[in-house]
């Protein structure tokens, strides 16, 4: 598949920018002008970390091309809220929103909302359920549901709104062991269909299995060491459909301002592969890695220090080598991933159905 691709993409994790508005703006603009295709926002509980989705939303009006992709937990948050918040992010970013699905395994997150801690396979089941509900809610308004028809006084065409009728007991009936507390969501969404129709959904490879591979648009792949990453990417690619992007996760610390990378950071401890060294070495490493992976997400050890090196030395050289896919001004995140804009799953059903949609909720 790599032979038909038009280059890979680079995402940058922006957690290091913190919660201050001025720092956030500076970071995301620097990432955009450096030529990163996407910015991601981590959201696991940690002191000083503000809500990821809001940080992404703040970055929306300030930027033009970079995709904005927050992590959003599926276990301890309401699926209806997740879906409408992400759809809203798509509106405020002009169709550049995505979603990194996470499933929090932390007892602290459970205690904070007074729910029993979820572990093991149940994490993936919660994630799968949330993805399914969100996708249905995004489709619950057909694209042309807002008609503003003055003659009939109708603002919306009710036949183009749909109840999602999601119920864990029914939708996961093949898994009688759905371990989370069962729930249902009625719909329709409170917000019209997102600009992209469906936001790209990214999930870490560890959730695959419980989360069906066809439920996601991209898989994030980790490995214990940089030299194992390409093999891990190949392994994951063999388990997902051809259209699913495979994205490698890489911690990065670069020689900078006369200081060796090794001297700047003692150790990451993130569980991700890491690269420490010169910009030229990283450029070569990424060139090879992007032969296997559709994209790489970089986690810089120090956001502003490493971003400066990346923007000055690494990205220009990768672009010169033709390794990176071109940036599309005013493009959507789906455009970047090479995904077409899907029709709502309810659209055909509605036009063929005799009975009005949603009657007898």
């Amino acid at each position, binding site marked *: 598949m790599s032979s038909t691709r038009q280059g890979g993409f680079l995402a940058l994790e922006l957690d290091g920018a913190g*919660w*201050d*508005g001025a720092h*956030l*703006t500076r970071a995301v603009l620097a990432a955009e002008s450096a030529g990163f295709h996407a910015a991601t926002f981590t959201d696991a*509980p940690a*002191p*000083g970390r*503000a*809500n990821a*989705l*809001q*940080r992404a*939303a*703040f*970055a*929306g*009006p300030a930027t033009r091309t970079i995709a904005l992709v927050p992590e959003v937990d599926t276990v*301890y*948050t*309401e*699926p*209806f*809220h997740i879906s*409408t*918040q992400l*759809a*809203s*992010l798509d*509106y*405020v*970013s*002009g169709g550049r929103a995505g979603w990194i699905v996470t499933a929090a395994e932390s007892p*602290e997150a459970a*205690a*904070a*909302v*007074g729910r029993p801690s979820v572990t093991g396979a149940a994490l993936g089941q919660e994630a799968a359920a949330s993805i399914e509900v969100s996708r249905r809610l995004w489709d619950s*308004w057909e694209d042309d549901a807002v008609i*503003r028809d003055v003659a*009939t*006084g*109708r*603002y*919306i065409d*009710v036949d183009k*709104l749909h109840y999602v009728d999601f119920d864990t007991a029914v939708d996961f009936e093949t898994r009688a062991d759905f371990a989370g*507390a069962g*729930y*249902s*969501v*009625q*719909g*329709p969404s*409170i*917000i*019209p269909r997102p600009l992209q129709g469906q936001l790209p959904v990214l999930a870490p490879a560890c959730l695959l299995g419980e989360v069906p591979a066809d439920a996601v648009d991209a898989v994030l792949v980790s490995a214990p060491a940089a030299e194992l990453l390409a093999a891990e990417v190949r392994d994951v690619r063999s388990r997902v459909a051809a259209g699913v992007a495979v994205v490698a996760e890489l911690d990065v610390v670069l020689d900078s301002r006369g200081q060796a990378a090794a001297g700047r950071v003692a150790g990451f401890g993130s569980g991700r592969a890491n690269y420490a060294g010169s910009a030229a070495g990283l450029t070569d490493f990424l060139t090879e890695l992007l032969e296997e992976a559709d994209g790489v997400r970089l986690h810089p050890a120090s956001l502003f220090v490493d971003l400066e090196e990346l923007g000055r030395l690494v990205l220009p050289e990768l672009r010169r080598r033709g390794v990176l896919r071109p940036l599309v001004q005013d493009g959507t995140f789906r455009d970047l991933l090479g995904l077409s804009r899907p029709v709502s799953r309810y659209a055909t059903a509605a036009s063929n159905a005799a009975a009005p949609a*949603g*009657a*007898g909720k």
Partner: protein
Amino acid sequence: MTQHNRAKSDVFVPSGQIQFGVFFQGVNSGTIWKAAESGSQTDFESFRRIAQTAERGLFAAFFLGEGLRLREHLGRPHALDVVGRPDAQTMLAALASVTTNIGLVATQNTTYNDPADLAHRLASLDLISGGRAAWNIVTTDNAWTGANFRRGGYLDHADRYKHAEAFVETAKRIWDSWETPDGPARRVVHQGQHYTVDVTPRLPRSAQYRPVLFQAGDSPEGRNFAARQADVIFSAHPKFDDAVEFRKDLVERSLAAGRGANAVQIMPASEFILAPTAAEAAEKKEWVRSLQIGPQQAIAYLEQFWGRELSSYDPDGPLPEIDPVVEETSETRGSGFHGAKARQLADQWRAEAKDKGLSIRQFVTSRTARVDSTFTGSYVEVADQLAEFARVGAVDGFNISPWLIPSGLDDIVNHLVPELQERGVYPTEYRGNTLWENLGLETPVRSSDAAAEAVRA
């Protein structure tokens, strides 16, 4: 830290000032979508333009509503009015990056959110915006809304405020949990009837200490809740005499709750229909009402109470002679309506319409338009009226629902605001960068000092 100057006092002192807020309503029947100049209700540009115009007019706050389920009419989504809106906090976070001083108020429900999660998200918005966030606290108790949430419809009506108050107390304790701006945070534990929280908060205090709290309930329980917990009350007593009465009542309740006489500000929802002359304003009002309540809206309004289809009736004719279908009533058909009263209500309305010689459309217009909360007139007239409110301290400001998006604030900002400034009753610049400063609120009392024992529900 920001200095808050006003000290607690037992005597109410009018500020002599009027503040404005703007309520971008989203789902509602008041926003005109049929006019040529009506813009998108969901595009970011509409929100940006309203927020930036408001900021140009030195408005204190920009409000958004919250949607949890689509309204229905006779068992299907309601088709006639503006419907669909972005998530409040997501939109406000985006607006924070294109504004600098205006407060950002998110309406958020206490029933279908978790206290620790909501408190964290509001704290995030507060930090990202540099101390401009606020929470408009609302409650819901119906299973119909609950059908979209894991929690379902678990809350009894009687428990609504008890639950909401425990929720708000928990949120305040979370915001108070940092001893100093650098931490460390104290663990916050709440064990109650409806939820359990055990959390070590992650975010420090913002430049305004914590998000400002708005509250809209108007029942005695709602007023007491506001007097104990809120910074600003946002309920509708915009007529002068009513407003004065409401202020007295609220001052008494605030003092009874151990707070200062000026502790809770009043900012009622309102609508402005303005023009250079009174005659033009009156004409404009006719136009606005005709677009708000068209023939289909008039019939649908009655259908909501009749519980049956009435499309064969002429909107310009008299009210229907047939009676409501009581057994088909349900909570999805609007608040405040109870099946048993339908017949009685219909009789009453028919008599009233007949007495006054009103058609269906005229009658519905008289019922639904913001009759009590509309200021209609020339810029000069309305400015004089508002100056009188300011002089006696009847209200602290008005929360304006524009009937047109996105140009609905233009005449207010361009013409009314300068008139008010000339009268010395409206700010000529922002006092500071935080909402707290701009509203001139009293210093907040740390909830851990005052209310640790009050958490019970």
